[in-house]
């Protein structure tokens, strides 16, 4: 028996320092083929960047965008009522901050991402009023204040925060729409809502309402009650077999014929309902996928513990099923946000609708590229934001781990 090898005889692990040069040598110029590819691809990339930058700064004429920023952002929403949008923004920042502080103690990353939402939205409003940068500061201060308050008094503030979250959607409608004919918070009819404001409202309401309806439909489809099951299946299969645009047209053009004379439903509401109906059917199928991924043992364990049917769903099955399909659901939310642009085809002035309207102005003839590049970038910022948020949410909830 020999004694243990003295430490000094053990070879140290090979030091692997990654330097920029080393990395390049390994990954970009590893062989002759690699080197050629690197030069070709690099050259193409440089050319592309050059062309784009050159177009942005010399060829493109941005007047069609810069002259109409207000229109892009909020349509014809009156400037005198802009403070109401800011109010919503302040409220959102406070709610997000509170929720972050109270509920996400162990998930700091999610908090950061949630904070990005009001910041991005505030940036959107800033482009309305460049002198309003201090309001942007208020948004941040409120969010951080909410965070520290929530962290300090989590028990006391939990209930008010829940109530605020629940009230936020109706409050949004109330504040954006207003109350009476004149005076404080006067009525702003929906035909004045437009631009990104309308797009976001359609998307948010679409997401918030289609989600619970979709969950109910998914449960209905799994139900043992034949009537409920059949209704759910018929609804889902009918809606999934029809393009969204036809639903929108039906809502805008056909619905009025079926309503008794004298009753009209607001066009924005009709479009929102069509979007919600459409999204709910897809949501149901995604949630069903999650439900099917839950092993039978979980149902049995819940039965044996004595939980009733709905308790089993709410406490055991749905939390696991929804967690499993977060990536799919977020993908669908992103799709839904972009699909709201279809309402432009039935005459609503959302971001795309406004863009088309502006392009119809003789002053801006031939400026399609600039205008569409601009609104594409706006869609991208929000879509990527959602995608990034979902990625962080997955990490902090441990999706994929068991």
């Amino acid at each position: 028996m020999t004694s243990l090898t003295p430490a000094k005889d053990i070879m140290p692990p090979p030091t692997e320092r990654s330097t920029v040069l080393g990395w390049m040598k390994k990954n970009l110029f590893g062989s002759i083929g690699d080197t050629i590819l690197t030069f070709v691809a690099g050259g193409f990339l440089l050319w592309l960047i050059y062309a784009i930058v050159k177009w942005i700064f010399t060829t493109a004429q941005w007047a069609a965008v810069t002259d109409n920023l207000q229109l892009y952002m909020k349509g014809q929403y009156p400037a005198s009522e802009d403070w109401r949008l800011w109010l919503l923004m302040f409220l959102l920042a406070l709610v997000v901050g509170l929720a972050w502080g109270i509920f996400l103690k162990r998930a700091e990353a999610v908090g950061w991402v949630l904070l990005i939402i009001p910041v991005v939205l505030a940036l959107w409003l800033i482009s309305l009023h460049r002198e309003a940068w201090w309001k942007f500061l208020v948004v941040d201060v409120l969010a951080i204040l909410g965070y520290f308050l929530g962290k300090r008094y989590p028990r006391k503030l939990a209930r008010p925060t829940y109530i605020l979250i629940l009230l936020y959607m109706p409050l949004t409608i109330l504040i954006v729409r207003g109350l009476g004919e004149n005076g404080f918070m006067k009525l702003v009819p929906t035909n004045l809502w437009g631009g990104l404001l309308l797009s976001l409202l359609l998307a948010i309401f679409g997401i918030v309402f289609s989600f619970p309806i979709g969950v109910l439909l998914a449960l209905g489809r799994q139900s043992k009650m034949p009537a409920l099951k059949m209704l759910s299946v018929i609804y889902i299969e009918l809606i999934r077999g029809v393009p969204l645009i036809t639903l929108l047209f039906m809502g805008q053009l056909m619905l009025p014929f079926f309503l008794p004379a004298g009753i009209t439903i607001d066009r924005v509401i009709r479009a929102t309902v069509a979007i919600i109906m459409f999204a709910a059917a897809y949501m149901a199928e995604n949630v069903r996928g999650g439900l099917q991924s839950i092993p039978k043992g979980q149902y049995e364990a819940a039965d044996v513990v004595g939980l009733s049917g709905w308790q089993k769903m709410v406490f055991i099955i749905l939390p696991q099923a929804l967690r499993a399909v977060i990536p799919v659901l977020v993908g669908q939310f992103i799709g839904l946000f972009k699909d709201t642009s279809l309402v432009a085809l039935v005459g609503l002035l959302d971001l795309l609708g406004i863009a088309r309207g502006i392009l119809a102005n003789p002053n801006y003839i031939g400026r399609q590229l600039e205008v569409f590049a601009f609104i594409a970038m706006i869609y991208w910022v929000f879509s990527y934001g959602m995608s990034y948020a979902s990625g962080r949410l997955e990490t902090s909830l441990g999706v994929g781990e068991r």
Partner: protein
Amino acid sequence: MSNESSTKSGAVKEGEPIIKCEEVHKWYGNFHVLRGVNMNVQKGEVVVVFGPSGSGKSTFIRCINRLEEHQKGHIIVDGIELSHDVRNIAAIRKEVGMVFQQFNLFPHLTVMQNITLGPIYVRKWNKDKAEEIAMQLLERVGIPEQAQKYPGQLSGGQQQRVAIARALAMQPKIMLFDEPTSALDPEMIKEVLEVMEELAESGMTMIVVTHEMGFARAVADTMYFFDEGQIVESGSPEEVFLHPQEDRTKLFLSQILSH
């Protein structure tokens, strides 16, 4: 309702069996899984059910709390007959705890939440009382320090002990164990069996499906040997181990005891 009186629990008189199974039959399609099983279990009795795989022993104990439905015969638990009446099923499940081979803990809840879910929402206890009792149970199964962890952070043996605590938290009169150690590494089997032995000594009525013959010898009052959906032989551990009557039993015992 014809059996109104039988829906009340605790109707078992002294000396009456707490579980009565008469001529229980079950089919999966054309496959006759249970072919007339008769079994009476007294209060405080520890029953070990063993037999080759596919003999219907798991199916049988899963019939007792209606995870599987029997198609013929009667199962009467604590004075309540199992029928299609949902209230009867709920009443029986309140009194019958179960431990599974695969633990089946809820992975998204902490150990503490796993244990207190039933007491809070089914027994309607307040949270403090439920947590206090959960801590006592965790101490009884030897892992009070794991209360705030998630099941995925525990070893298999620890998970199974949490599962036992979860079942006990409902304060059941009867505990069913469906091969509780079959999914465990050898060194973890012991810790689970020790908990079960302690439970048996405390007077709990238990039906255990297991191949742990050492455990059976130590704590079983009655052993039942299942084969092809029937009880081939039953008796005390001495009778079954030392003087088996049936050839099928002898063969099976020689196979599992030879190594």
